[in-house]
């Protein structure tokens, strides 16, 4: 990349020619304020908080979108520029509720932070609030529309990153607002509950439904046995909520905190992830041997499942019938575990800590009751768990590490990597290879399926067969592969699809704000966790062995089918 010369506030800098002014300023140590800009999204330049003066231009330009060019002279801190930014913020604040202290985003709100940075001490304009009723009918995503500031990040995330098209701007001028399609409620649209809109929302306008109160009550109730499971991606992200560096691996602190909160048993979704590999791996082998529908597509990501049911229901036969690890865990907790621990299943509540908002939807799907009860009772996001830890006054940074309970807490490195895009694929290949060839896989790190790219392809030799695989993350990337399948242009055997950018580490329930750098750090931590594990292949997990011996008998067996597999429903894409 060629460098060009640019003058910022009278000082000269050399920056790559493909930089925006914002990036150039960042390099020069000037943190220009942004609101509608988000590193994951196409710049829009509409909030005008990042405007700068460019010599020779009549009006100010948005630095987030304006490319640098040779000899450009930029001023970021003139009176006019500062006045313009402050006025823009004042105008936004004048249409924003003044109830920070009771807002979900209090102390994590970008608008609040900007108001402090701008030293906003007075809002001249009258406070004009539209009368909106908070919408939480979906049971997953809550829209507090009066807090929306029209930055449009959610719209871009929904349309461009996820291609779900459940949100759009309506009306125009000062009446402009973001609404779900056709002014319906979110659950009446194509929304997949992926929560990407939440992760990019700068204010409290979009957030998940807070279900911590219910969990506190269960914990308090001596008659209820509360079991908690934590998804693979939580341990690499929860630290961010507690003020640690992104990618801080906090598995043991997490377990310690959960015990302090008062959960009766602290288990690990990783256990169920290993189980998923056994079931899904055998399903793939079965399809390969018996001319089943190929390519087979993974089914761990509930946002992806709803997306598929809505837009690609013709591909239902391609999707693995395996439940997601969370649901496998729930079904086993209320059957296998209660049997072993001799507890009344009706008194057990299963709480999941998930990086995901769609999991809240998944656990409430009517078919997820194979244990005779609702398999998973409630799902909390990473952020909700962080809230609980803060309320409990637990000093996360200093808490002593602890280990998961047995047996549903024993897992392998193959399960740990479920949290990153490509992880399910890698875990499955580790097992399938050894089951098929009966020889040990020497190089266990299948690096060709790792990484942040939206679409990855690889061919892996398993015995005589060259297994062709594809991995996508982010639903608009999934579309690319799915359209290829529809057109008959794809000859993959196995496809992993994750709903969120980067996989679960970029999930809709993860700490905010998120960015590609943060997701990268979380992903690195995931593979570090894998490396540190003694066992790194699902079929070597002794607890899984015992499970099959004591309870399930065999992969894809009758009991497995009853408890661990599911079916899908076609949904209307034009609701």
């Amino acid at each position: 990349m060629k460098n060009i010369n640019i003058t910022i506030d009278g000082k000269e800098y050399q920056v790559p020619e493909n930089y925006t002014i914002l990036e150039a300023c960042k390099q020069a140590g000037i943190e220009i304020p942004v609101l509608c800009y988000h590193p994951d999204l196409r710049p829009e330049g509409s909030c005008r908080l990042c405007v700068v003066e460019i010599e020779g231009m009549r009006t100010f330009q948005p630095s987030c979108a304006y490319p640098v060019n040779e000899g450009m002279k930029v001023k970021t801190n003139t009176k006019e520029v500062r006045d313009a930014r402050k006025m823009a913020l004042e105008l936004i604040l004048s249409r924003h509720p003044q109830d920070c202290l009771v807002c979900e985003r209090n102390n994590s709100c970008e608008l609040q932070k900007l108001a402090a940075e701008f030293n906003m001490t007075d809002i001249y304009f009258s406070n004009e609030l539209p009368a909106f009723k908070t919408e939480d009918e979906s049971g997953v995503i809550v829209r507090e529309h009066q807090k929306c500031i029209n930055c449009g990040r959610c719209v871009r995330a929904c349309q461009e990153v996820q291609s779900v098209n459940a949100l759009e701007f309506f009306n125009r001028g000062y009446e402009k607002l973001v609404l779900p399609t056709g002014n319906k409620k979110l659950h009446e649209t194509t929304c997949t509950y992926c929560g990407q809109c939440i992760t990019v929302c700068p204010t409290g306008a979009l957030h998940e439904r807070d279900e911590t109160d219910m969990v506190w009550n269960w914990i308090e109730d001596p008659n209820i046995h509360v079991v908690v499971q934590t998804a693979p991606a939580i341990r690499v992200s929860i630290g961010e909520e507690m003020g640690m560096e992104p990618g801080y691996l906090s598995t043991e602190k997490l377990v310690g905190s959960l015990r302090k909160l008062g959960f009766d048993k602290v288990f690990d979704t990783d256990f169920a992830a290993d189980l998923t590999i056994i079931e899904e791996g055998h399903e793939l082998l079965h399809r390969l041997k018996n001319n089943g529908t190929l390519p087979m597509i993974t089914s761990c990501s509930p946002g992806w499942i709803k997306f598929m049911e809505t837009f690609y229901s013709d591909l239902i036969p391609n999707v693995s019938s395996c439940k997601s690890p969370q649901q496998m865990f729930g079904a086993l907790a209320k059957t296998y575990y209660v049997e072993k621990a001799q507890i009344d299943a009706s008194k057990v509540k299963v709480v999941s800590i998930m990086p995901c908002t769609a999991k809240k939807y998944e656990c409430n799907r009517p078919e997820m009751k194979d244990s005779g009860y609702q398999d998973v009772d409630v799902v909390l996001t990473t952020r909700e768990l962080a809230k609980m830890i803060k309320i409990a006054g637990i000093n996360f940074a200093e808490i002593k590490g602890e280990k998961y309970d047995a047996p549903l807490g024993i897992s392998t490195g193959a399960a740990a990597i479920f949290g990153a895009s490509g992880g399910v694929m890698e875990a499955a290949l580790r097992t399938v290879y050894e089951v098929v060839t009966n020889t040990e896989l020497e190089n266990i790190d299948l690096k060709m399926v790792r990484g942040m790219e939206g679409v990855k392809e690889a061919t892996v030799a398993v015995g005589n067969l060259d297994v062709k695989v594809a991995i996508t993350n982010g639903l608009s990337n999934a579309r690319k592969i799915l359209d290829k399948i529809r057109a008959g242009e794809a000859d993959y055997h196995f496809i992993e699809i994750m709903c969120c950018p980067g996989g679960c580490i970029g999930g809709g329930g993860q700490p905010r704000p998120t960015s590609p750098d943060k997701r990268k750090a979380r992903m690195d931590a995931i593979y570090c966790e894998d490396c540190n594990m003694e066992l790194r292949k699902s079929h070597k997990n002794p607890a899984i062995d015992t499970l099959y011996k004591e309870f399930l008998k065999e992969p894809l067996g009758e009991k497995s089918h009853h408890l661990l597999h599911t079916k899908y429903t076609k949904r209307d894409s034009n609701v």
Partner: protein
Amino acid sequence: MTCCNVDVGKILKEYSEEKGNLMEILHKIQNSSKENYICDDCMKKISDYTKLPLNKLYGVTSFYTMFSNKKRGKYVIRMCESCPCHVLGAEAVINSFVDELGIKVGETTKDGKFTLEHCACLGLCAVAPAVMINEDVHGNLKPEMVKDIIAKYE
């Protein structure tokens, strides 16, 4: 493919799937509707035909003032209130329409005949103040003329 008495399928077929036709399709379908609007079912059909996601379609119809997703009267009275009309007494004319029809701007009469709307300049400034009733234009208006104009519409 009829919907609210509009043969949507027929109208859609007049247009190639080529991009750039949406605005005219919307005009055509709305104009064919007796209630001067595009219903939700029509929206879905347009979405299917144009391959434009429904959310974006609603975004479009809510952006342009000429389109409506809510039922309107048989006649939509669009009253200009821009400066050239304003300085020559548009406000009195608008009030006269409001009084005569007994509805507020933005509302439809109970018999479903008239809808009153404000609008920006109609380009009829030479005969200001002016209104448009569906596709007819009326200019050089005075408040006392309103009654007769309304009477012309069945």
